[in-house]
């Protein structure tokens, strides 16, 4: 098994594109090493992207948007006070991934590209309107995060392509976000359902923009436009909350497994969507 740690994006995508056997990106390794150990994957080439500077940066852009490197760790996100203030939902979702030790390594790029419908940071990124910047042999392109994953372990990346960074849009005043997941314990478990909500309110407290995303209730993480439409124009009164719950439930096509039945997941998706929206609203009013 070959290991390379290139220092440029171009070199990394050339290595990936030219590999005859299976090639894998290594970011934090918290999924990849576990899968190699249990013989789920056996790559011929590992390309470690952590020595590429732009995969490791967090920058606030002049227009107010953010750029987060694909190989930034959960621990680094948590230590970024300003990012946490502007995008608390994205940071809290990333910080739910695993233990302190896992946080020291786990990345947003890895969480997305591992291709799990239950990945915790993905609903928060989708709700945030995050765009993944991909690099490949043909150059760079941007893809909304909701379009990166096609199904379990299936991504829309071409041969030689990988995620370099994520872009988060500029934030109007009175905007915020939140992420909640349901697990049967308080730490160290995989989401039964996850919900991310990002919204903006006007001076009167009416929601003017919203995005709602649900994880672990379908073969991929969903952007639920109907759920957002159910609350835009409202102040999230009881009627709007009920509409939100109904729209969230209607979008679910979950599986039955040991963590939860179809019925349970659909029920919880509504509850979490409502609770997450209420937290995001509360935060937005004070931003």
């Amino acid at each position, binding site marked *: *098994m*070959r290991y390379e740690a290139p220092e440029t994006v171009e070199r990394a995508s050339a290595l990936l594109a030219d590999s005859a056997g299976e090639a894998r990106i290594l970011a934090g390794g*918290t999924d990849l*090493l576990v899968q190699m150990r249990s013989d789920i994957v056996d790559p011929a080439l590992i390309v470690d992207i952590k020595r590429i500077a732009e995969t490791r940066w967090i920058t606030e852009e002049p227009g107010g948007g953010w750029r987060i490197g694909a190989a930034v*760790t959960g621990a680094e996100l948590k230590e970024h006070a300003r990012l946490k203030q502007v995008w608390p939902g994205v940071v809290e979702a990333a910080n739910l991934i695993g233990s*302190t*030790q896992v946080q*020291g390594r786990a990345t947003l790029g890895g969480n997305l590209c591992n291709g799990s419908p239950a990945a915790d940071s993905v609903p928060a990124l989708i709700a945030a309107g995050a765009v993944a910047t991909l690099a490949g042999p043909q150059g760079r392109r941007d893809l909304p995060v909701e379009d990166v994953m096609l199904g379990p372990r299936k991504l829309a990346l071409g041969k030689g392509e990988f995620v370099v960074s994520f872009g988060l849009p500029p934030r109007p005043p009175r905007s915020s976000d939140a992420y909640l997941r349901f697990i049967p314990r308080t*730490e*160290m478990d995989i989401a039964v359902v996850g919900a991310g909500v990002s919204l903006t309110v006007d001076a009167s407290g009416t929601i003017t923009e919203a995005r709602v995303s649900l994880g672990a209730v379908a073969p991929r993480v969903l952007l639920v436009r109907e759920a957002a439409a159910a609350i835009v124009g409202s102040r999230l009164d009881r009627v709007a909350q009920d509409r939100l719950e109904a729209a969230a439930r209607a979008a679910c096509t979950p599986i039955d497994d040991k963590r939860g039945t179809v019925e349970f997941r659909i029920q919880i998706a509504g509850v979490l969507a409502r609770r997450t929206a209420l937290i995001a609203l509360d935060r937005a009013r004070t931003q």
Partner: protein
Amino acid sequence: MAKHHIETTVNGDAVEFLCETEETLLDVLRDTLHLTGSKEGCASGDCGACSVTLDGRLVCACLVLGCEVGGRRIETIEGMAEGEALHPLQTKFLEHAALQCGICTPGFLVASRALLERNPNPSETEIRYWLAGNLCRCTGYDKIVTAVKDAAVVMRKG
């Protein structure tokens, strides 16, 4: 394929070793460098028995490749006591009987030290969340949490 030749720093000492790509940092520490204080409980990131710090960051050595650590700074349980003088965490783990079989102990000590370096006065909740990735099948955790709190008191007094 030829082995990787890696030069790095372990507990302040310059170290070099050869490894295959698939060997983890834990394999290298235990089998090549014979630093067997870090334990393998699961090899999947779940138990924390292999906890070490990498450039000051707490990680599971079982989820790091040996070939990734060139030029980095690694701290293991072997670097915790200064000669015969135990670290306050080690003293307090003994005093409060915070271990039974001891397999989890090096991981708890390394993880607790990383916590106290960042937060000299953690609450019980903060200790429990920080240590949620360290599993212990023997103690029931209470004595570990007590030992960490008590060590924090000693360390704050300097």
